[in-house]
Structure formats: C-alpha cells, structure tokens
C-alpha cells in the first residue's frame, strides 16, 4: 500500500507536537514537510519549538518557516493556553536541526509539484500559509487530495463565544480555504473537545517510558493545567484530530454542510457559519466532524508512542 503524502502546517503548540508524532508513527502517512505559521505563539517561537523537539526526538523531516501573522490582521498569540514559549512544559536542549532554505509556501510548492500522488494538507494553525499557497498556485490545487484541518466550530467557540482560535486568527485566510473547492474535512471544537485524555491516561502515557512518551506526558502535564482550571475532565487533543482523520476516518462521525467564514462580525468574527438548519440552498463544501470514538483515538495515540519508541521512523 502506498503511503499518503501529507504536509503538516502548524504553530507548535502542545497539541501540534503531539499531532506530528501521531503522523510520524503512522505507516499510512508520509510526512513530506512541516510548515510553520505564527499563531499560538510568534513564528520564531513556533519554529524554534518545532526544531527543538524534532532534534530531541531524532526525527528528520523538512521544516520551513511561513507567515509571521494573518493575511490582513495583526497576530494575537495564546500564552494563556501554551505558555510564553508556545510550548511550555518539556525542558529540551537547543535545536540541532535547521529549517530548509525555502519558505513555507515554496516548500509546499516543491512537495506538491514533485509528488506523483495527490498530497493531503493537515493545517492545525491559522490558515495563512495554506491560503497564500492556494492563491499563488491555482495550477496546483488539483494536486491537493484533501485538507483535514483543525479549526472552527458549529456552535461554541474558545477564542470568543462563537469562534475557534485558528479561524478567528485569520478569517480571510480561512475564507480562501473554505471557498477553494478542495475536499475539506473540518475537525472543529465540536469533535476536538470530545477527543481528550484524562489524568489517568496522561499517567499511562508517561508509563510507556520512552523519550517520545515522556515528551508527550511533559506537554500534557502543562497543557492539562489550563483545561483543568476551566473545569474540564479531559484535556482536549485538538490538532491530533486533523491527523487522526487522515489515518482512520471511520473513527469519526460526520455531516456534510455548507460552511462560510464570518469576516465582518463585531462579535462573531471568525465563526464557521454552518448551514445546518435545513433552509440552505448551497451544496456542502465541507465534511464536519461531530463525534469521535474516543477510546480508539486514545489507543491510536498510545500505539503511536510505542511505535516511535522502537525507532527507525524518519531517521
């Protein structure tokens, strides 16, 4: 079976790092590149976090720096969730790896152009890089197989009452992506809040006892504090949902809807307006995940960390 070539576009980010590890462990996926965008923290911090943990875990995947901030708006970071570094928790030595000599869009172009198979995009930060790539390469759109993105919500947001952080951060970029015509799979807060781990499971991850699991447990020890303070039993693994959907879509329950991005709202800016009330005349443009088999998802994470511990991945 040929592996699915994917590009991960992200802003690590605790859950971003876990998503990358889940993808790296999967024998169904071939991570062709990791592109970085300013989001959870500044571009510089997110890039540094990525290179640091890839170096520490001895994973060798091309990394490229992308947009510092949204297409039209200023960058707002999320230290309340991810700490001042953007990935507080694990104590890692300085990075030994360097980014490639291309920017994010150039790396995406190279990968997509050179790939024999269609490429899958997994964005898990603001959609700025992806939007620039799509606008700059109309001829390459047909070589994108699908986009499985972490972002949006059909109802309740986290940055505002109605808006999820990634889409809120760059609504214009999201609009470009949602209108692209590329098959779109939205892993929004509806599903990602169901895709969490409890404290017991975090302890089990630590007990796996390799450097990958220790790193993830350190990430989750920090990340869970924020969510526990909000009264949540589970620490959501938002970004890994974007990867898990590509690995095993059967794990998810979905509905097809027409989804538009609100770019004008005083209060609802960045809302993924989901036409799910039955009077919509538009054809659906997005498969929206609404549920997940949590046990299966958590097992996929555990298995991923054990597989990585056996070595040989992206060496």
């Amino acid at each position: 079976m040929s592996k699915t070539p994917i590009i991960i576009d992200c802003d690590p980010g605790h859950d971003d790092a876990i998503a990358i590890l889940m993808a790296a462990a999967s024998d169904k996926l071939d991570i062709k590149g990791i592109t970085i965008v300013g989001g959870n923290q500044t571009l510089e911090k997110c890039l540094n976090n990525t290179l640091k943990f890839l170096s520490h875990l001895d994973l060798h995947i091309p990394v490229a720096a992308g947009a510092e901030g949204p297409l039209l708006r200023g960058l707002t970071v999320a230290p309340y969730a991810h700490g001042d570094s953007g990935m507080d928790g694990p104590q890692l030595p300085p990075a030994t790896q360097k980014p490639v000599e291309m920017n994010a869009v150039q790396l995406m172009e190279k990968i997509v152009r050179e790939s024999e198979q269609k490429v899958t995009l997994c964005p898990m930060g603001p959609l700025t890089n992806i939007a620039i790539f799509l606008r700059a390469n109309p001829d390459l759109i047909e070589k994108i197989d699908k986009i499985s993105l972490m972002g949006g919500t059909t109802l309740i947001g986290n940055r505002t009452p109605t808006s999820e952080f990634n889409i809120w951060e760059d609504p214009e970029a999201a609009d470009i992506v949602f209108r692209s015509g590329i098959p779109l799979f939205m892993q929004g807060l509806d599903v990602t809040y169901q895709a969490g781990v409890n404290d017991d499971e975090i302890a089990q991850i630590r007990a796996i006892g390799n450097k990958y699991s220790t790193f993830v447990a350190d990430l989750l020890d920090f990340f869970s504090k924020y969510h526990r303070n909000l009264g949540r039993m589970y620490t959501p693994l938002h970004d890994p949902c974007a990867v898990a959907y590509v690995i095993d879509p059967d794990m998810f329950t979905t509905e097809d809807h027409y989804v538009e991005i609100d770019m004008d709202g005083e209060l609802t800016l960045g809302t993924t307006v989901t036409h799910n009330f039955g009077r919509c005349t538009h054809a659906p443009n997005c498969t929206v995940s609404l549920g997940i088999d949590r046990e299966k998802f958590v097992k996929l994470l555990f298995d991923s960390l054990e597989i990585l511990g056996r070595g040989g991945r992206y060496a």
Partner: protein
Amino acid sequence: MEKRPIIIDTDPGCDDFFAIMMAAAYEGFDIRAITTVAGNAVVDVTTRNALDIAKLLGIKTRIAKGAGSAMMHPFDEPAAFVHGLNGIGQVVLPRSEQKVDEMKAWDVIYDEACKADGQLELIPVGPLTNVAIALLKYPDLKDKIKRITIMGGSTTIGNCLPYSEANIFHDPYAAHLVFTSGIPLVMAGLDITLTALVPTDDIMKMSEDIKNKAVRDTVVQLAKIRGNEPFHDVVAVASVIKEDIAEYKDYNVEIEYKSPLTYGRTIVDTTFTTGKAPNCRVMTGYNVEAHKTMFADMMRKY
C-alpha cells in the same frame, strides 16, 4: 390578588394570537395595552389584527400602533410564507370598531410604566423596535420596567440564518438596545420554543371545550393552517404566568448586527468566554406537558 400589569408587544401572527389568548385567559394579568409592530406583516395589518383579535377574545385594553420598520432599515418583506399575507394565514376575523389609541406604541409603554409604579412587565413577541424606541425616547424608562420577557433569539439554531431567529433578525439594532438596557430580561429562545409543540390533533380536541363559537372557529382554522408547528410566542406568555414551567440560566447575551452571515444572532456566552456579567435569564429547558395543560385550560376560559 393584585393583578400584574403587562403589555404585550406583538405582530399578530398566528402564534401571537395564541399568546394573546393565553394572556387574556389568565385572571392574574391586567393587560394594560397591546402594542403592535411590523413583523409577520406590515404594521397596519398587524394593528388591524390586534384590534380584531381583542374584540374576538373580549379583551378591553388600549391598542397602540408602533413601528412600521426596523431601527436601521426600511421594512422589506413580511414573513408571508409563514403567516399568510394578512399575517394570520388569511383567516378573516370579525371586524372590531375599536379605534387605535391616539398615542404611539412607545408613548403608551412609557405612560403605562409611569402609572404602574415599577410593576409593569413587557412581553414582546415580535421585533423589539417599539421597546427600543421607547428606551431611546424616555431614558428613565429602564428604571420603571419590572421585567421584559422576550420571545426571540436562540442559543443554538436559527430560522432566518443558521444561527439567527426571526424576531431578532428583523431588528438586531433594537435588540441590542434592549439587551444592553439593564432591565431584567428573560429570553424564550427558538431552541426552547421549538420544543413546545402542541400537536394539531390535540388542539382540535381541546378546542371542543371552547364555548364561544367564533373563538372556536378561529382556533380551529389557525391550528389547521399552522400544522404541527410550535406556537413560539405562547412560551413567553406561559413563562410569565407560570415561571417554573421553564428552567433558566443567567448568561451574558449580546446581539451581532454587523455581519451579513450572523446578522441578528443572539450570542449566549454559555461557556463564560467573554468574562462579561450576565444580562439575561435564558431559558434552558421547558416543561412541554405543563405547557399542554395550560393550553387546554386556556381553551376552557372562552
């Protein structure tokens, strides 16, 4: 028992008819006025309907005409597909000879608020234009209203846009003024009123208890036209009569009025993301069985 002074602000409207019917059947209310607004039909039609409904149901009160268009936009199109061109599904009511009040809706609201010594409750079941104009014209009005119980908005799904309910959608600017007024608010939103279904067959059976033939005929016609659709507006009135018919939570609610995609969405901060203080008691559950009982009891009063 001292009767509770109320004003129903309305755009009749099939479900408005039943809301008025339920309010008038309740001995605990002193209906100080019915004020009309454009919504289900143009304001001249909703006013005509209010007069005729009052006559049919034997309600003696002031009926005052209000706004013909929303705060910021000319009135475009009545919701004819829902309520028929005359607002009540082309049902023809016996014509009332009562004259429309000489005062406008907002002046009547203020006048009655002053007379009621802080006890007046408003039950708006249409767009909130009249209430907003009253609040703008009389800045001291906000301290004279005991409570406003609104049929409008939604915590989840809409009926005009994905998240926008019709009454708020028709005048979100007015809704914004009402929701920021500081007056105690109760919101009977679409997500709740959609659950308050009394099936047409049940209404037919209940209507056999109506002694007044003209009332009975009208109820039967309206129920048939409406089909198995909930009478949204009745929920607001029922909850003012019997507060424990619903469950409530206090939330901050704001109105979006800038975005074409979410115009008129009531943003109910159920996760306390904004950190803003609650300004509204939002209905979160409803006792549909008790609602049906109230419906049946109401029929026996006519």
